[in-house]
């Protein structure tokens, strides 16, 4: 879900560019007895909110955003009045470090036992002190098997595509998405700053570029379904939706691995309704509720017992069931030097 680029984000960027951000914006939420949630756009099941209100009598308001940067900027500006925010795994350490979210001690919650053990302790929040999983998925690529029969088992097919894919490759529009997957293909770690590796990385991306039709994070599944692109870097959930519209699409779990990501619920510092926020987080770890969210947003949750309540076509889809031995590398927020290198790679590629 990271870096969903849209007008909203661009508008925010424009706002930032104007330097208007510092003083303006927040303070729309607030008022006790009402739970204020701030989540990604189209990422909160309406049925879920209705059910929570019905069970607890707590009213819920929902505001949405479209990038982690927006969330970061808002929380940094302060006084947002939100009780629950949903942040990607790479941003959780930043929020903890900047003291923007507060401890919730999720492990003490009654429903915590429902979480898959592998998600109870996550690298970005090892003791579940600050956050609880919302949804997760993988980033890899899909190709059209009617264009290229395959079999495909390597990221090399994406980065060094066979001739049939020439001019038919679609990549994400954000540097971290593209560069992280390319580093995985090279067998190098995310946030690599080794000059030799980075020069090789630029070579790989420059070699791929003539085959690339577009670098854009929006409308990926649409491009695959319309045939505009025959091979595309894509999130697992989008890949599943695209395949349901075009059966010849195949989501690839490459031998080099896949990028994993997870969005996490957290409670901002200064949340007006701390107690109710905890109630909601506990509510979300209930299998039935987690399933409602999965059925709505189309991504995996961290509650295995939710499986019987998930729509069967979704639950059994290959995009939802990565092989047990898949090397899954989770995104992380890179240190300043690596960010600078990513920026340079991305600029060199498109100068």
């Amino acid at each position: 879900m990271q870096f969903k680029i849209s007008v909203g984000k661009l508008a925010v960027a424009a706002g930032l560019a104007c330097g208007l951000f510092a003083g303006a914006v927040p303070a729309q939420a607030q008022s006790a007895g009402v739970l204020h949630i701030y989540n990604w756009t189209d990422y909160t099941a309406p049925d879920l909110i209705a059910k929570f209100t019905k069970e607890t009598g707590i009213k819920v308001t929902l505001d949405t955003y479209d990038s982690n940067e927006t969330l970061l900027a808002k929380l940094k500006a302060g006084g947002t009045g939100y009780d629950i925010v949903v942040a990607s795994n790479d941003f959780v350490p930043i929020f903890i470090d900047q003291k923007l979210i507060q401890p919730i001690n999720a492990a003490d919650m009654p429903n915590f036992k429902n979480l898959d053990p592998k998600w109870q302790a996550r690298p970005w929040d090892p003791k579940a002190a600050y956050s609880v999983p919302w949804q997760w998925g993988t980033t890899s690529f899909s190709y059209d098997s009617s264009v290229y029969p395959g079999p495909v088992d390597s990221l090399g097919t994406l980065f060094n595509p066979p001739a049939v894919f020439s001019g038919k490759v679609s990549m994400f529009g954000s540097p971290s998405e593209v560069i992280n997957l390319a580093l995985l293909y090279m067998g190098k770690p995310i946030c690599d700053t080794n000059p030799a590796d980075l020069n090789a990385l630029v070579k790989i991306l420059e070699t791929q570029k003539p085959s690339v039709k577009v670098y854009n994070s929006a409308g990926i599944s649409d491009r695959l379904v319309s045939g505009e692109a025959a091979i595309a870097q894509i999130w697992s959930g989008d890949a599943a939706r695209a395949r349901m519209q075009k059966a010849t699409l195949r989501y690839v779990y490459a031998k080099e691995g896949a990028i994993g990501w997870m969005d996490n619920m957290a409670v901002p510092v200064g949340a007006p309704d701390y107690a109710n926020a905890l109630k909601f987080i506990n509510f979300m770890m209930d299998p039935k509720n987690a399933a409602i969210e999965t059925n709505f947003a189309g991504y995996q949750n961290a509650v295995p017992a939710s499986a019987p309540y998930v729509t069967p076509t979704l639950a059994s889809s290959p995009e939802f069931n990565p092989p047990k031995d898949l090397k899954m590398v989770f995104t992380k927020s890179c240190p300043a030097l690596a960010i600078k290198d990513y920026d340079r790679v991305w600029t060199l590629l498109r100068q």
Partner: protein
Amino acid sequence: MRLKTTLLLLLPAIGLIFLFMVIPMLISLLYSFMTANVYGGVTMPLTVDAYVQMLFDQDFSGNLTFMPDYLWIMLRSFYLAVATTVLSLALGFPVAWYIMCQSPARRTLLLTLVTLPFWINTLIRTYCWILLLRDSGLVNGFLQYLGLIDHPLPLLYNQPAVLLGLVYTFLPFMVLPIYATLERLDPRLVEAAYDLYASRWRLFRRVIWPLTKPGIAAGTVLVFAPALGSFLQPDMLGGGKQLLIGSLIEMQFTSSRNWPFGSALAILVTAAVILALILQSRRTKAMEARA
């Protein structure tokens, strides 16, 4: 008393400009001399690094090297903005002239049609161009249906597509000011020119063009300035394969988390536009002096 009233009436406009234009620009200027914060934002100390970065950048090993890439990006943006302005003028002038020649009722109708696109969000309109121009889009589909082409033409995700998007978006800003000056054009001057046996071309060169210059100048600025900083059309119609300065600025404030450099670039764009305005007004003044 009169002066006071005038000042009072002007106050809201001046306040608005000060609050939403001057202050943000001053903040940008300040930010451009500060140091980038790790998670976005700026911090002390003051530095000119952001301006140095426009020409010299550290390579992966940390050596400061001459980097012409940003220069290319700026030149490309400049070229596209100029091309957009010239094309808008070439397309917009005849449109304005045509509207002026109509009956009052038809004029109102046509002017409404010119402004009609503003009723729809730019993002949606730009996305519609994708639907029209893509391989399986309406244009290629129609040409294939007619049997004129076998394979879809590469209409989308290249520079001409960006140019098309820019001209399409900013054309009304050229038509409207030119129409405003044409409307005030004294028809007797045209008649006089004909009476004196001026050819159509001479009439245009010696009478119409000089009299509509203020409108053309206004239109040129209104098209050039936003075209120079645009990022929606380049990103969506250009396929993100070639950076323009607008996208470069956006990138600095988001993924690259280098606000000072983004601010410095924004200042550069503003400076370029202001410079163009100054040159424009100097030329106008010089011409008025000659006349």
